[in-house]
């Protein structure tokens, strides 16, 4: 008797598309995946429709890898649909995991975003002042666009999630390992983040160069200094969030001479990445004087954007007040 190959699916919601790219980046190992499973739904690559999914029996997909945050009514519907159809729903990539870059929109109201996009942006040309959302009647009947909700949410704020694959985008090694693990006989504990539960410094190539004590009089942005390619970036005054960020990416950014921006979220013992990163960074300030401390901190132009770059919707306070 030939055992039926397990079915897997990929879907994207509010994301840049990089996660889809990451799946492709798995390269030849994708063949291992294909050999082990059937891809039954992958809009970016294969021509299946929503109705095809609707016709599948509930729970018939072994695992759906959903990337992107949830902003529109359509995304919410699809998340619900795929949840029903899948045994495992995997939040794939930072946006789905934590809200990601799109989540930074939670610092702004829906109205101000639409205003900026449809009217105020310098590249916008909209003489008729058209706005999405109004129903359109044409020969097919009344058409509406999905509703653009007030806030961005992470996937697990919309449906129940079984696993998380972190990263912006997730690194191929992690992806392969995640897929194969799920196909294997011993699935990990529900709710697990499928990456090492420790901070990035563990695997940072510059770890040994980090001094025991760091005392900074200013924070620097990468474009402002000549970065020493061998030394710990924090020690050079760059805001590297590696100490507060989950490992697994093999410190690719740091390898590329750029500080970690925190895409993999926090390790498991931390409730909120932003607060912890903030706490650690503040402790490096070399001053006991309030006004000098403020001066030093002024070199961080957008602290909330820096510390919550990927995790705003999943943080303790999910959005700016009033949004």
């Amino acid at each position, binding site marked *: 008797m030939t055992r039926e190959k397990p079915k897997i699916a990929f879907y994207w919601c509010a994301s840049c598309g990089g996660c889809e790219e990451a799946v492709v980046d798995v390269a030849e190992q994708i063949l291992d995946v294909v050999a082990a499973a059937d891809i039954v739904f992958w809009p970016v690559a294969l021509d299946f429709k929503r109705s095809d999914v609707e016709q599948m029996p509930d729970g018939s997909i072994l695992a759906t890898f959903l990337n992107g945050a949830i902003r529109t009514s359509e995304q919410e519907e699809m998340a619900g649909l795929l949840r029903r159809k899948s045994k495992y729903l995997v939040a794939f990539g930072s946006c789905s995991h934590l809200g990601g870059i799109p989540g930074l929109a939670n610092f702004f109201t829906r109205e101000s975003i639409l205003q900026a996009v449809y009217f105020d942006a310098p590249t916008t040309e909209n003489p008729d002042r058209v706005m999405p959302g109004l129903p359109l009647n044409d020969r097919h009947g009344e058409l509406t666009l999905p509703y653009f909700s007030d806030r961005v*949410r992470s996937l697990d704020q919309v449906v129940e999630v079984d696993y998380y694959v972190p990263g912006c985008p997730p690194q191929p090694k992690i992806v392969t390992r995640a897929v194969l693990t799920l196909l294997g006989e011993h699935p990990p504990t529900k709710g697990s983040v499928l990456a090492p539960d420790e901070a990035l410094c563990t695997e940072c190539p510059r770890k040994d160069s980090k001094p025991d004590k760091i005392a900074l009089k200013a924070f620097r942005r990468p474009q402002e200094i000549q970065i020493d390619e061998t030394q710990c970036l924090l020690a050079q005054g760059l805001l590297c969030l590696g100490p507060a960020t989950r490992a697994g990416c093999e410190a690719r950014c740091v390898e590329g001479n750029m500080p970690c921006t925190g895409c993999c979220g926090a390790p*498991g013992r931390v*409730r909120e990445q932003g607060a912890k990163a*903030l*706490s650690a960074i503040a402790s490096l*300030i070399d001053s006991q004087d309030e006004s000098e*401390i403020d001066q030093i901190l002024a070199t961080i132009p957008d602290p909330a954007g820096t510390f919550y770059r990927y995790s705003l919707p999943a943080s303790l306070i999910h959005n700016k*007040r009033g949004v």
Partner: protein
Amino acid sequence: MPNAIESVSGNGQVSTEVAEPRIVGFFCTWCTYLAADLAGTSRIKYAPNVRVIRVMCSGRIDPQFVLDAFAHGADGVLIGGCHPGDCHYQQGNYNCLRRARLLKRVLEQFGIEEERFRLEWISAAEGDRVRVVIDDMVEKLRKLGPLQLKRGPALVRGGSGEQVPQEVGV
């Protein structure tokens, strides 16, 4: 608190009837906590809005605690530490100060008014200062009104009855 609401809805959303500010205090055991004790032994009267959590040092106060308090309905957070140079552990209050200055900016970006997050140096001898600070803060927060953070969606909890993993926050 006569005006405090008696219930919190399922997602932690606080009803709008709250009139009295609710403040969580984190007090260092060696100074502000003692000052609050002194206020007690001196029978100094002040507003009952602050609930105090004792920590060994203001340096112990993790920004996560502050945000957690706001997220769970606090209208204000008050940190009490030793005066600069007076830390029982030499440096803890400076660490607290650095964190607080940065956190203040982040809170501002979150739309949380400056008055809602306060760091005060109150020594063990300044019992009356506890009153002054608390009464002043309560007064200011009364003027500001409730914080009313619209709490984001709670996690969708698993039907399997499993605990929500820590990895993803609340």
